[in-house]
């Protein structure tokens, strides 16, 4: 956690310096204002999502998760995870902490990949916006074409890493 915080702090300092060089203090302030607005707008959602994460933490014991993963492993598990990703509400500040919680419970790496690619490719809450703001025909074509992506990436990850857990593959122990 401390290492991640240090990386973020260094990256922020570098970006502040770049923004200062490119557009002066005004650009830095605009960037910080955008960050502040996002933080304020999403604060309540963040609190609620951590209530969900906490409740899931006590509900999903490692034994339960293992049992579930034993029942829905392989392609079935990939399909369910990809679909769950697509249905999962909220932005990256919600689904990454959630995925991290499951990863710390021993979730296999390929399930994480299917979930994240499912969220990024499908995100069903985004579809109405894509249809209305871009074009219905393009939204249909794009969604159909990208439909197999989470399944292929999940299968690829399973082939390469087999049933190894996220923390085992990434060599992280809860960070």
């Amino acid at each position, binding site marked *: 956690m401390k290492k991640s915080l240090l990386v973020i702090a260094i*990256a922020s300092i570098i970006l502040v310096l770049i923004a200062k060089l490119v557009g002066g203090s005004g650009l830095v302030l605009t960037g910080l204002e955008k960050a502040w607005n996002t933080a304020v707008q999403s604060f309540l959602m963040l609190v609620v999502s951590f209530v969900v994460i906490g409740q899931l933490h006590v509900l999903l014991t490692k034994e339960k998760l293992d049992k579930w993963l034993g029942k829905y492993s392989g392609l079935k598990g990939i399909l369910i995870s990809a679909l769950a990703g697509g249905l999962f509400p*909220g932005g990256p500040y919600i689904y*990454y*902490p959630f995925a991290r919680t499951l990863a710390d419970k021993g979730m296999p790496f390929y399930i994480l990949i299917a979930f994240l690619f499912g969220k990024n490719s499908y995100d069903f809450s985004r579809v109405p916006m894509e249809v209305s703001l871009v074009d219905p025909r393009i939204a249909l*074509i794009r969604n159909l*074409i*990208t439909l197999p992506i989470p399944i292929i990436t999940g299968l690829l990850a399973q082939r390469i890493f087999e049933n190894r857990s996220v923390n085992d593959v990434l060599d992280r122990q809860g960070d």
Partner: protein
Amino acid sequence: MLLTTALLSAIALILFFLNRKENGKQIEGLKIGARQLLQTLPLILGAFILAGLIEVLIPVEFVKNWLSTEAGLKGILLGTFGGMLLAMGPYAAFPIITSVLASGAGLGTVVALITGWALLGLSKAPFESTFFGLKFFLYKSILSIPFCLAAGLAAHTLDLLLN
């Protein structure tokens, strides 16, 4: 955002009562959630700052002009990386994509652009690297590139077949 919050609140309530019925650990769950929020909050706030700075540093007009008349294989390649640079949420990204489409970009370019934004969008980078590490972010991004190109290529082929 309000709808998502309402949905998450409903899920939280269901889980709370489910835990109360199943194991009586609902209060422990609240404590764990609060502890995790406090532990993660500095990271999330840092990631918000990074995402805000990335958003203002990437010149949207440049991306728009860059892609406006592109089609074919070059358009697919530029669309993929253009999508990565659109470090913003759907409300901001989709109107930009629409303007790229309106200015004459091909179907392959637009599909690569949306797929690139969805899979590679830099606004996710701070969160992905915070919760799973920089290496994971880099590998996932590299793995995503061929999928964005393939999606653009499939759309381009479809466009050629339909017209």
